[in-house]
């Protein structure tokens, strides 16, 4: 390949600055304002969801494989992470219904025996253990995806969707099976593993001196999304897009369909698994019954709101989605008064009704979502260009999108 001169253009630079700014702001805010604020829940959950949404977008938006198995792979990741990191000391209390765990290995303990139990040794083993466990979570999900993909990836559009949904349900049943209780704790929750809160820096008597619990998920999700973006811009990513746009033409150009589809499915599942591990850290308990098909639908709706085929759209949409559902619309759940007049309809559950109506409006009338298939840097670039080329760029983009999605029809 000829070496091209690497040049960071303005749009990318602005985007990077924004991301960096958000991260720094998170650290500053977390250490200055009330740490129990819902803002931080939103940041943590938003970071987790944006990773999962981007991983789903890689599959649905960039490779054109309509899969609904995301919750299943998250479940695999979450369980793998939890099983690999629950400290040996508390395993018996976690698995009390099954008289202890048959799998007595914890990365944290293993590293602690190398680096020591106290001070810096404990910190290093925590970080290394968590990172290794997260990677294992991704690998387990990817291996599983490879095996599932062998039969399933031969299917197309909605058949693929329903088959992957089916696999997610099968996985959920397996993890709730009593006979595997020694490993998975059956239908009971796994807990006691390191969560985001463990990354707050504490002093000797256990007081928190510096909070990092919202920064860590942002950082991990950010790194993973960055890797996905690199992948999308590589030759593999171009092959994925070619498959999405026209399978037959892509095959004629020498792209191995089976190999690339399988690759995309595995990579997407790897990051869904990592997302699952992060979700486990966020929720601080893991239970198979949380990873239902409703969760997949939620992530799919995020992808749609953000724009199918836009990484930054997925990220923005997941933060917006989580902020709306967890924070901004929360007032709708409580009875509200204007003066002495009680506003009707406002009671528990109203938030989700309003929310789903908003989603329906987006799905019906703003089908391109927030970003369409543009990325954040494109927007900054466009500002400059609009003077030179007004509106000419709009038209082909719409056509392209329609043509791509129309391929599902016939």
């Amino acid at each position, binding site marked *: 390949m000829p070496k091209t001169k690497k040049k960071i253009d303005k749009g990318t630079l602005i985007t990077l600055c924004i991301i960096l700014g958000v991260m720094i702001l998170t650290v500053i805010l977390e250490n200055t304002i009330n740490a129990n604020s819902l803002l931080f829940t939103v940041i943590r959950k938003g970071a987790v969801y944006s990773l999962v949404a981007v991983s789903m977008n890689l599959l649905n938006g960039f490779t054109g494989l309509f899969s609904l198995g995301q919750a299943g792979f998250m479940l695999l990741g979450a369980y793998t992470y939890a099983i690999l990191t629950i400290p040996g000391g508390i395993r018996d209390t976690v698995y009390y219904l099954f008289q202890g765990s048959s799998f007595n290995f914890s990365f944290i303990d293993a590293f602690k025996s190398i680096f020591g139990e106290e001070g810096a040794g404990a910190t290093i083993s925590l970080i290394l253990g968590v990172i290794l466990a997260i990677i294992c979570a991704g690998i387990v999900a990817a291996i599983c995806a490879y095996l599932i993909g062998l039969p399933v990836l031969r299917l*197309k559009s*909605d058949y693929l969707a329903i088959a992957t949904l089916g696999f997610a349900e099968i996985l959920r049943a397996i993890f709730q099976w009593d006979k595997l209780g020694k490993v998975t704790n059956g239908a009971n929750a796994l807990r006691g593993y390191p969560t985001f809160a463990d990354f707050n820096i504490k002093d000797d008597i256990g007081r928190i001196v510096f909070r990092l619990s919202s920064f860590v998920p942002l950082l991990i999700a950010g790194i993973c999304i960055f890797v996905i973006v690199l992948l999308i811009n590589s030759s593999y990513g171009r092959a994925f897009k070619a498959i999405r746009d026209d399978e037959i033409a892509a095959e004629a150009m020498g792209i191995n369909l089976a190999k690339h589809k399988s690759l995309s499915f595995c990579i997407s599942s790897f990051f869904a698994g990592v997302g699952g591990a992060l979700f486990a850290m966020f929720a601080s308990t893991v239970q198979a019954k949380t990873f239902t098909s409703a969760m997949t639908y939620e992530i799919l709706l995020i992808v*749609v709101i953000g724009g199918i085929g836009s990484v930054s759209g997925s990220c923005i949409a997941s933060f917006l989605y989580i902020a709306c559902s967890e924070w901004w619309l929360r007032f709708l759940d409580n009875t509200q008064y204007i003066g002495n007049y009680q506003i009707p309809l406002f009671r528990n559950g109203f938030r*989700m009704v309003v929310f*789903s109506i908003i*989603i329906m409006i987006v799905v019906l009338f703003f089908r391109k979502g927030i970003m369409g298939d543009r990325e954040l840097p494109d927007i900054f670039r466009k500002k400059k260009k609009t003077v030179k080329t007004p509106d000419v760029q709009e038209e082909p983009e719409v056509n392209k999108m329609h043509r791509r999605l129309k391929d599902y029809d016939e």
Partner: protein
Amino acid sequence: MEFLVSQVLSGISLGGQYALIAIGYTMVYGILRLINFAHGDVFMVAGLFMIYLSASLPIYLSIPLAIIMTVLLGFIIERAAYKPLRTAPRMSVMISAIGVSYLLQNLALYATGGQPKTYASIPWISKTIYIFGAPTRIVTVITPILVIVLVVLLSLLINHTKIGIAMRAVAKDFETSKLMGVKINNVISITFIIGSFLAAVGSLLYFTNYPTVVPMSGAMPGLKAFVAAVFGGIGSVPGAVIGAFIIGICETLIKGTDYSVFSDAFTFALLIVILVVKPTGIFGEKATDKV
């Protein structure tokens, strides 16, 4: 023996209830090529309608009213959420269906306040009777009979009426039948009306056996009915019915063993096997673009 008889009987009954939902899936898929993810939730809402109506009205009024309201709901969903997307790509319609399903579940959650609602017992059909010494309810016997009657009526409608011919034409070729002067929108609306009607009847029978209705109670039966439709060959009504009976019986038999956690998983395993081995299903007509 008695245990087996009662298991098989309730399996047939469950299968019949799935069959009524599956027909809705298979007809809509046949015409619009859309997995109507909201269909299972329409089924759940039908259960809720029945609960709220029977609280204030006598049974003989509330049953027809609940069915009518469900039919209206199906009609409105089609007009509001699927019709605007008629020219849109198939993915968008499917996403819209998922959105409707989400909306219906949240509306149900809002209406019920998250409490499981007790289903009104319909006096006559929940009586206990004995068949080969196995105790069961009358509903178990009624379901398969009712299903067969409804399916016969439906196939008469599809094969011998004008609207039935239009339906088959639209299912064969959307564009051409439009050119031939078939009123596509009417045909699609009628398909949804029939589907919702059958789902409402199915929910009457289903919730007689399952005492409570929660917002999520439509999701699983819905997915299973869809699997049944695929199993029987999507687009084929008799296929969907037979697929539903097979799935219903297998599921109930598995629930009787030690592997009861896998009763749901079995259905999906069956789906994957059938998609891989014979993608057109057991009664599928032609090789389509599934694989």
